[in-house]
């Protein structure tokens, strides 16, 4: 088990804030898991791209109400 889990709630935020918050979490954590909550396709794509480019494994789950849960792991 890894206790390094950071939750970033980026719902309702416009560009580029979801990516900025995720980037901050990446710098803070170095390794572990980051769970990003987003509600737009743009934020989902941008956060996923940032995660992959930074060497994290990225999984995206669409939530029933139409938002996204993006999990970055390293």
């Amino acid at each position: 088990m890894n206790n390094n889990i950071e939750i970033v709630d980026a719902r309702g935020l416009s560009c580029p804030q979801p990516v900025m918050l995720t980037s901050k979490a990446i710098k803070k954590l170095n390794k572990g898991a980051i769970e990003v909550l987003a509600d737009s396709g743009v934020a989902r794509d941008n956060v996923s791209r940032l995660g992959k480019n930074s060497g994290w494994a990225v999984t995206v789950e669409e939530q029933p109400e139409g938002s996204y849960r993006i999990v970055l792991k390293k």
Partner: protein
Amino acid sequence: MSTILRFLTSRWGPIITGTVVGVLAPVLVMLGNPGNMGICVVCFTRDIAGALGLQRAGTVQYIRPEIIGFVLGALVAALAFKEFKPRTGSAPLVRFLLGMFAVFGALVFLGCPWRAYLRLAGGDWNAIFGILGLVAGIGLGIVFLRMGFSLGRSRPAPKAVGWVMPAIMVTLLVFLIVAPQFGRDANGNPTGPIFFSTTGPGSQHAPLLISLAVGLFIGFLAQRSRFCTVGAVRDMIMLKDSHLLNGVIALIVVAFITNFALGQFHPGFASQPVAQTNEWWNFGGMALAGLAFTLAGGCPGRQLFLAGEGDGDSAMFVGGMLVGAGFAHNFSIASSAAGPSAFGPITVIVGLVICVIIGLTMREAVATAKA
């Protein structure tokens, strides 16, 4: 087909969109749009403001189908890919103000970021100062973003909210086709309510259906690829991410090649179409525009695409652009070929001060909780 559509959300998406704009914008000029103005979101919004009588500069009045197409094309893409998500509540009035000041700045330069790149690709070297100003404005915006600037969160809204801007665009299309006229004044001039220029840039336009089709196509592509002419520079400076910038570079390179092939490349500073040569205010105007666009989250095209996705806050920004475009001519802010107008420079300074105040004061405590 689905492979192509998937391609649009990959790193090739912005490049494909930029390439399409780079070909079609010069073609629109060949078909009748003003020089180096195949696409200019701000100029076209200004023309629409003129057509609606919000400003009465007789040479810049036309309902530009490209703008209608941008919103409706993005709407179609958003509906097709389940991204039509009506939302609002992120400081709409501040966004309205940012839309106004973005237009003031852009009309001092005489073009939005889209046209700045297209002017460069047509050999208008005045665009260099505009683009430098744009980068400076975006840089200043990034400083505020790093300091924690935020316009706050939007919230999901009823479906009807998302349909308002598309409905306005359909109404504009009806006005364009029907062009209602209530009569003429004593001098024989039309009294409106819809005005179309008979001389000047407003009278120059490609055929309606072609302009509309190009707008729809670009709107569709840009919604999928997230194409943004301001985000391109912002992401490169702030995140070292060239994803969007590749699209802008593709736009400039392809537009240059297309202009060259069509005999529309005319290098120089003087006598460029719908341009002025004052380098200081070309820089200053676009610095204001770059700052306002960055604080609002994207370029004017992007605001239209977002409005097509149901974003009521971007729709407010577009509303600000439309009203601002009216003011820009009524208050002698927009430049002419002769240079900056009487109140252009002071408006840029006031606009910068107001945008800096917005940049310094808009904050949100964002939750980043440790689980």
